[in-house]
């Protein structure tokens, strides 16, 4: 057993923790993980049992069973001090509360199913306290805690809104069937009174009872000190609650007939639940919190619990496990199982993240820097000096900062506004699609999200361009802009290629397109994109020179149209996807050309984004026109032909952009400065004292930076500094603003010619060097 688990947990420990030597703790972590898995199993089992056993009876049996076992182990009466009468009363209150909370928890279990219950209800106190601290106090404990709280809330909302659990919906339709008792009925009416849809009531109830549980645990701490230890309290509490529940159970079993066929077959599962849920977990939690810090314990526990719950939820209803359990469990109908849905998985992931965030960094660790450990093993922190400035950057502040940066400059501002518009449109589309359950709209929305990635890329590049040069990127990040333009251009090319392919395929076999939903969506998309075009071409007319390109752009709209994007689905015409709004009809060759000639008026990044938006617009127009054509005349063939046409146009329009970007990336001498540079070189040769120049390299690094290097050979009797200054001035006039000149005097040139030479020789030397390395001798170059 030990061997079996040690390997997997060793790796887990290595991953998670670095601050404490782990070797001693692995044992406890294994124990914790195993316990949590068992607990998840127990909860799933109890869900099954709760289908046949009444909830109050169930809790009674649990409490009684654990009380018996705990009495045996803990011996609360024979050991410790005597309990006074006042304490007994307190204990009674305590027991009543704990009964109510477990009642709520298990009732939530019947409503929501085991997976959701585990996700919602089984958070450790540390997590919930941290969460409440963030929500209701001003000093929540730093940005990371806020993040964790936000994740938690999102997870709950996910469960509330996006969890399409069929069983819950079914239960909402027949609530009467579930009202086994007055208690259930009361809870049901309470939930309905809260104004929540009843099938989501379980979720709300679980959250509320989670808070209650935590409050209860905190309150009971004092009592446990009075009584003499948490374990003793727990044992006594179980006993007292069993006694509290006893009259109710008697009444219940007298008034209602039991659904259980044979109690004897339930002994095993009950024993297992009592063992795993009530006893083992309690002890292991106590041990682990004693041995490691509570937050860590909570983190590992939560992760293990949620993951095992997810796995179990997946396999619990599997036929195989059904066979395994069939002997121990009365058979039942399959239809009433809670299923996994996307919302649950998402929220489970969020829960895991939030609980690890909320429990991981202790508050102390955030304010100071860890300096080491005291001999006892408690961490020591340094609160002095710059540690206070070095807090982790909070998310809101980060957003605020980058927003400010974005809005500072014209280009990025334009892109940002348009991105917002686009995203808003996309989300409206997505939500509407989810709401009306239209697959076409949803997939259209996703395609648009993909389109937004081009904008995001552009925005990011525009931001990154302004980063300062670092030691690693010694020329600065200006090239990001060109790379981004290049990538955008490439994507457009790829898209054009796909459109081309798709339309050829469709030319051979024109599909039947369902045009019902095309028009409103594509008109919306067109409007959005038109705004974008206006914004960007406005930018262009500022940066470059002509507004004519703007008009030019629009003049092409008339005959372009594309539908390519739904080709994959259109073929079998079942649901008729219409991806109109964002069609990648990328047309309009002339425009790209006019940019190409205007040169540096607009940077590559903006050109890429602009072309992309333009192409989207054309796609929208194309879809509208093709819709009209198909509806009015039934010309199905017109669609692929126009797509073909558009694909070609895109290709042509992107080529100049790509060519420019390629030239820059290949370190070409900037074409627009070429003439000036040549004349500058001639001038340099005429400077007095200069014999010749060698290896002149000039290349554009980014939009506003041209770097250059040159070797000069000069006579030995002239002043180097004067010549360097002259050359620098001449080349600066020619546009080179990052220059280094190496001056070599005649004798030196002889000396160095073997060392630093032209590129071809350098390569030969590269290999020479290789051999020299092996000789361990780097000095034999001369």
């Amino acid at each position: 057993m030990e061997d079996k688990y040690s390997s997997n947990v060793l790796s887990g420990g290595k991953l998670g923790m670095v601050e404490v030597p782990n070797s001693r703790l692995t044992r406890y972590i294994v124990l914790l993980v195993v316990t949590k898995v068992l607990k998840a199993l127990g909860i799933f089992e109890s869900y099954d049992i709760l289908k046949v056993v009444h909830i109050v009876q169930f809790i009674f049996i649990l409490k009684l069973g654990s009380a018996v076992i705990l009495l045996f182990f803990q011996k609360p009466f024979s050991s410790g001090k005597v309990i006074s009468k006042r304490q007994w009363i307190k204990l009674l209150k305590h027991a009543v509360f704990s009964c109510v909370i477990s009642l709520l928890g298990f009732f939530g279990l019947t409503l929501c199913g085991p997976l959701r219950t585990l996700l919602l209800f089984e958070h450790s106190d540390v997590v919930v306290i941290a969460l409440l601290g963030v929500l209701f106090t001003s000093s929540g404990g730093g940005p990371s805690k806020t993040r964790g709280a936000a994740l938690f809330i999102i997870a709950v909302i996910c469960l509330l809104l996006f969890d399409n659990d069929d069983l819950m919906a079914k239960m909402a339709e027949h609530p009467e069937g579930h009202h086994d008792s007055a208690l259930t009925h009361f809870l049901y009416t309470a939930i309905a009174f809260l104004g929540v849809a009843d099938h989501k009531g379980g979720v709300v109830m679980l959250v509320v009872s989670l808070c209650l549980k935590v409050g209860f645990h905190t309150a009971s701490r004092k009592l446990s000190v009075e009584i003499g230890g948490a374990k003793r309290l727990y044992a006594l509490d179980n006993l007292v609650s069993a006694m509290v529940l006893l009259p109710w159970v008697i009444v219940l079993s007298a008034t209602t007939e039991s659904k259980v066929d044979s109690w004897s077959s339930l002994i095993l599962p009950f024993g297992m639940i009592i063992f795993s849920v009530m006893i083992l977990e309690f002890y292991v939690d106590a041990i682990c919190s004693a041995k490691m810090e509570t937050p860590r314990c909570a983190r590992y526990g939560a992760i293990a619990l949620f993951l095992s719950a997810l796995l179990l939820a997946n396999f619990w209803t599997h036929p195989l496990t059904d066979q395994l359990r069939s002997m121990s469990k009365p058979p039942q109908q399959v239809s009433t199982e809670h299923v996994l849905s996307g919302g649950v998985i998402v929220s489970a992931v969020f829960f895991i993240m939030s609980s690890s965030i909320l429990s991981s960094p202790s508050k102390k660790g955030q304010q100071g820097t860890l300096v080491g450990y005291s001999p006892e093993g408690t961490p020591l922190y340094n609160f002095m000096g710059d540690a206070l400035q070095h807090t982790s950057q909070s998310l809101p502040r980060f957003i605020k900062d980058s927003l400010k940066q974005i809005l500072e400059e014209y280009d990025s501002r334009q892109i940002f506004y348009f991105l917002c518009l686009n995203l808003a449109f996309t989300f409206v589309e997505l939500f509407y699609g989810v709401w009306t359950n239209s697959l076409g709209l949803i997939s259209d929305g996703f395609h648009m999200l993909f389109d937004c990635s081009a904008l995001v890329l552009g925005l990011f590049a525009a931001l990154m361009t302004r980063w300062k040069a670092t030691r690693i990127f010694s020329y600065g990040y200006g090239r990001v802009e060109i790379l981004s333009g290049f990538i955008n251009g490439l994507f457009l090319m790829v898209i054009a290629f796909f459109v081309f392919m798709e339309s050829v395929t469709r030319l051979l076999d024109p599909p039947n397109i369902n045009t019902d939903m095309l028009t409103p969506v594509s008109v919306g998309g067109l409007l959005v994109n038109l705004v974008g075009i206006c914004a960007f071409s406005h930018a262009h007319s500022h940066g470059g020179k002509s507004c004519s390109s703007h008009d030019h752009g629009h003049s092409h709209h008339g005959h372009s149209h594309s539908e390519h994007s739904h080709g994959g689905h259109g073929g079998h015409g079942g649901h008729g996807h219409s991806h109109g709004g964002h069609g990648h009809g990328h047309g309009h060759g002339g425009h790209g050309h006019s940019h190409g000639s205007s040169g540096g008026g607009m940077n590559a990044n903006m050109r890429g984004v602009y072309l992309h938006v333009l192409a989207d617009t054309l796609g929208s127009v194309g879809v509208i026109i093709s819709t009209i054509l198909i509806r009015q005349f039934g010309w199905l063939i017109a669609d692929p032909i126009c797509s073909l046409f558009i694909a070609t146009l895109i290709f042509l329009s992107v080529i100049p952009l790509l060519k420019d970007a390629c030239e820059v990336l290949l370190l070409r001498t900037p074409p627009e400065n070429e003439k000036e540079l040549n004349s500058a070189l001639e001038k340099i040769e005429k400077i007095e004292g200069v014999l010749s120049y060698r290896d002149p390299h000039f290349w554009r690094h980014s939009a506003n930076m041209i770097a250059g290097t040159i070797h000069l050979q000069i006579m030995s009797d002239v002043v180097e500094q004067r010549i360097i200054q002259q050359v620098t001035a001449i080349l600066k006039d020619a546009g080179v603003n990052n220059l280094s000149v190496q001056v070599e005097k005649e004798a030196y040139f002889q000396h160095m010619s073997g060392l630093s030479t032209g590129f071809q020789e350098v390569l030969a030397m590269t290999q020479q060097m290789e051999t020299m390395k092996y000789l361990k001798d780097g000095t034999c170059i001369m």
Partner: protein
Amino acid sequence: MLPLSIKDDEYKPAKFNLLLKLSGWFRSILADKTSRNLFFFLCLNLSFAFVELSYGIWSNSLGLISDSFHMFFDCTALLAGLAASVISRWRSNDSFSYGYVRAEVLAGFVNGLFLIFTAFFIFSEGVERALEPPDVHHDRLLPVSVAGLIVNLIGIFVFQHGGHGHSHGEGGHGHSHSLFNGSLNHGHSHGGHDHQDKHSHGGHGHSHGGHGHSHGGHGHSHGGHEEPHCHDEFTPGKGSSKQILQGVLLHIIADTLGSVGVIISALLMQKYDLMIADPICSMLIALLIGVSVVPLLKESIGILMQRTPPSLDHALPECYQRVQQLQGVYNLQEPHFWTLCTDVYIGTLKLLVAPDADTRWILSQTHHIFTQAGVRQLYVQIEAAAM
């Protein structure tokens, strides 16, 4: 006035002889082992695609047609690699003063982007299908994918062999086939062979097998060094080549798993009707491709952005220190170091020296120091400090 030489250049396009040019290209392709292999493989791929296309048109199978288009797309990447390997051998001229060696970096970058793009598409398709598994007509899936694996293996064999041959054959000037070009050649050598035939029900299924891109650095590891070490791939000759070999390993794994995955999923579907196997397989393949491409992309972006070469990261501060310790050197300013193409580093820096310092000595010493660190082309601007 006599016509200047530049006039001749202008006239050239008028005398443009397509045949001559083509044969020139052809010769330059065949001159080099790597590009020759690439070329043959491209031909193989193209002919495969054409056979598929014509057969598809003949039998009117939409699946085959769109599959062949996918293969054409794969071929474009192959073509890019080929073009880059030819272009990178062009001589430098006035405009491109460094020559065209960067073409291979660029081609590697483009290919990496395409691979990421493909992986993304496959992944999203896989997710879509995992949620709603379509019934795939798998009658022809198995033979096609097995054929794909065979072609794949041929590709691996040819290129591996090619790489070795190259290393034997050429000595000193094998520089032009380096990491990027190499990786893309090899990368695409496997593109598009396993085309499962999932398209048969009207374009829903894209074939996701053929994009395993493997086996990048062979050309590289053999290209650079002519010494006996050269075809021992695990010689620690350079820091970078080890990295590349890691990438190669990843690529090979991704590729092989891709083909094998398709076959396995085909078998699973045929024997057990496990329809979920197909999307899961394709998602795994996509992930593998994505992961294996990231290092290539990172490196090529670094080079294109004129990053300081990672292999010099540690050597440079030491060099700066040594330069500053030279007699008469006050300060070192604006050091820029960047990679031209694989293993060719270029640097510029400015030295502030005492007015009476021996600049010649400083210059030669500085060159010396940096040459030892591996910077082959150095521009040192010496400025005398004002007194």
